């Protein structure tokens, strides 16, 4: 649905994208992560037709963003990072304005506004002046705006940046809902853990280059081979390394922290194979009489992924 090949972009003489390539399949929720200044916003603005790249090709829904920006704008909803809103109008007037500006015919506008209001749960805020909304509410209003023309592709730049924990969870639900509706979503974010559950694909950009991209599990597997599980014991933590190292499918054992005086502590075990191996690990530990109190399979952890990919960066 979204394809970039070898995108380059320079502000003046300074090139900030050095050949960005990525592919977002139809219906995917794609998380685009990278450190500050990596070029996320620049890439997204190119895809939203707001910047013309110096070279390279970018297509959205098969449409070239350089050649056919008008058509691309019709299928894309773009939520800019850090954007402003018109202050002295109510939320409803705000949405009505954008519905009209997007070229919806008068009879279709009310329905379009009602749909996005329901989706983003803005109902109670409609009569309030936009200047009286909180940051998070404004963010939701802007999201509603990007949905007005029922775009097939959503490009969201840091949609979670101003939200409190509850609003983030709500955003996550909304994104899943939009994903279920068949929209293709490309979003960038700093709040990496928040994304892990929604995103099916991930791309990591650093210094203007994409360093990893693909389905989230594949990327994770490619970057950190092996599965991981954490074990927690009340005593004899120091022995776990030797004990588990004997098992043929275990690739490594790493202490999470130095054991306490009583020997309590945790280890992270890297192993090959499926979840049945975890049962074998537990059996091996308990067979030796070590007091096992916790087993925790590693979640898809974008933060770690991020840290490992961008190691040595700025």
């Amino acid at each position, binding site marked *: 649905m979204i394809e970039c090949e070898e995108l380059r972009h320079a502000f003046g003489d300074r090139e900030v994208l050095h050949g960005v390539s990525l592919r977002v399949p139809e219906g995917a929720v794609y998380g685009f992560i990278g450190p500050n200044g990596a070029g996320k916003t620049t890439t997204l603005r190119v895809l939203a037709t707001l910047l*013309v790249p110096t070279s390279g090709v970018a297509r959205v829904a098969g449409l070239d963003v350089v050649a056919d920006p008008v058509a691309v*704008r019709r299928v894309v909803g773009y939520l800019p990072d850090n954007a402003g809103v018109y202050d002295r109008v109510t939320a409803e007037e705000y949405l009505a304005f954008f519905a*009209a500006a997007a070229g919806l015919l008068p009879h279709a506008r009310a329905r379009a506004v009602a749909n996005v209001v329901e989706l983003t749960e803005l109902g109670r805020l409609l009569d309030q002046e936009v200047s009286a909304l909180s940051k998070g509410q404004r963010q939701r209003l802007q999201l509603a705006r990007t949905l007005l023309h029922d775009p097939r592709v959503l490009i969201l730049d840091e949609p979670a940046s101003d939200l409190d924990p509850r609003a983030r969870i709500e955003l996550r639900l909304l994104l899943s809902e939009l994903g279920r509706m068949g929209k293709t979503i490309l979003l960038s974010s700093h709040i990496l853990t928040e994304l892990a559950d929604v995103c099916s694909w991930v791309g990591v950009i650093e210094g203007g280059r994409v360093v990893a991209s693909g389905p989230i599990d594949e990327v994770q597997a490619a970057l950190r081979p092996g599965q991981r599980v954490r074990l927690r014991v009340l005593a004899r933590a120091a022995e776990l390394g030797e004990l588990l190292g004997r098992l043929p499918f275990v690739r490594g054992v790493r202490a999470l922290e130095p054991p306490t005086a009583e020997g309590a502590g945790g280890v992270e075990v890297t192993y090959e194979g499926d979840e049945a191996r975890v049962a074998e690990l537990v059996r091996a530990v308990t067979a030796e009489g070590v007091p096992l109190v916790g087993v925790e399979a590693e979640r898809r952890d974008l933060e770690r992924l991020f840290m490992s990919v961008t190691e040595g960066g700025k």
Partner: protein
Amino acid sequence: MSAWAALWERARDPNPIVRKELLALLRTPVYVRSVVVALVALAVLVVSVALAASEGEADLAEAGRILFQVYFGGAYLLLAMVSPVFGATAIVQEREGRTFDALVLTGMHPSRVVTGKLLALFLAMAFIPVAATPVLGVVLLFGGVTLGHLLVATLYLGLVTLSGVAFGIGLSAQAQVTRRAVLLATPLAVFGALALSSVVTGLGVEYARRHSLTLEGPLFFVDAYFAVPYGLSYLFDLVVLPATVFGLWLWLWGAVAYAGLLEPSDDRARPVKLWALGAWAATTAAARLYAYVYALGAQDRVVLGHLAQAASGVLLVLLLSAWVGEPLRRSRRQLLHPPHPLSRALLPPTLLPTLGFLVALGALNFLVGPWLLTARGTNLEGLLSAGVWCLAYLSATTALQGFLAVRYGSSAARIGGALWLFATLVLCWIVYALAGGGSLSRGEGALWVSVSPVWAFPAVVDAFHGGRGDTSATRAALRFAMALFGLWTALFSALTALAWRRGVRSP
């Protein structure tokens, strides 16, 4: 729904920007407060004039006329000064408030954005005089002023307001910072209002003389509509001329605003280029019509031709400094969608052909336009000499700035252009004075100042139309300047070609 019904629905659909802007404005306390203050002040003015008139048992009709002049005179000045400043915030505040991207992405056509903003701000400004109408109606009761006077004065008030707002929006669309746009608009607005009123007064004097009328007050032209006999000159002076002037002004600033909303990958200068062509055609036609209506003699037509040359010279130099910032190469988007070859030839999108376009426009303005104005049998030598001199001057200026732009970038070109203007307008006169000067009318020392436009026009008039004896020295100086400009143009064109071949930085 049929396609026709949809089309009809769209045609009736008002511009959404108008509604949004007006809603927002009505919730802006400063705006509401100023409207109230303006209305109260007006009411006080009307009442006190009425009281004063009835106290002194003076002529009520006279009081009505005074009130009319005072009110509309004040309103003109006020709106002429306030509306540009008001307009100057229109678009740049979307940039600063980071709402601009969302507006662009709606796919709304830039021209629709401009007209929406223009209409909204115009309505907001015009609301003040409209709300004042009931108060002003009192004037009718006094007599001395008719409904017609009120309607004409109001129409002009509307035009002045619209022009002011359009000018402000033009600035606003080009600016990146609201404060700077407003700071620029304010002095220009004051200057513009003063210029407007002095032009109007000057025209009034000329008018009264020509038609042997007694036109009263600063707003003589309102009287003129009811005093001048109907006929060709009525049509020309009171309909065609104002329509041309206001039309070109609105078109210019509309085009500038439109250009400011285009993306860097578009051909941003195109709207203004179109305007330049249109303005050339419209002013030439209007001048021609003027010569016809007033049956100007051959001598007056020549003077008109020289005036046209001088005015367009100023305009073209201004345009040059805007167009010297054109991109050196076509953008990716233009390469993907190449414009029609004819359109590319007429309105070229990159620097060097644009400069060529400017010089071609100069040829139209300096040679063809004045020639179109003359009657058969006119001695064209003077007009032609002035025209060639102007074209040579423009070519030299353009060649210099083109070279600087290709080699060092557009800011260097603008600085170079300013230095060039200084050299030809001021420096050469200083040199002339230091070198001992001499009587210019006898052609002494003329070589020194022959590159100066300030010298060239009077010299041409003197040499070709003055009927003096020996003007050979002046003619020689003119030829010297043309040769100098020619060499200069050739030199910098060659340097540009060289710089271009050495390679220019990518856009």
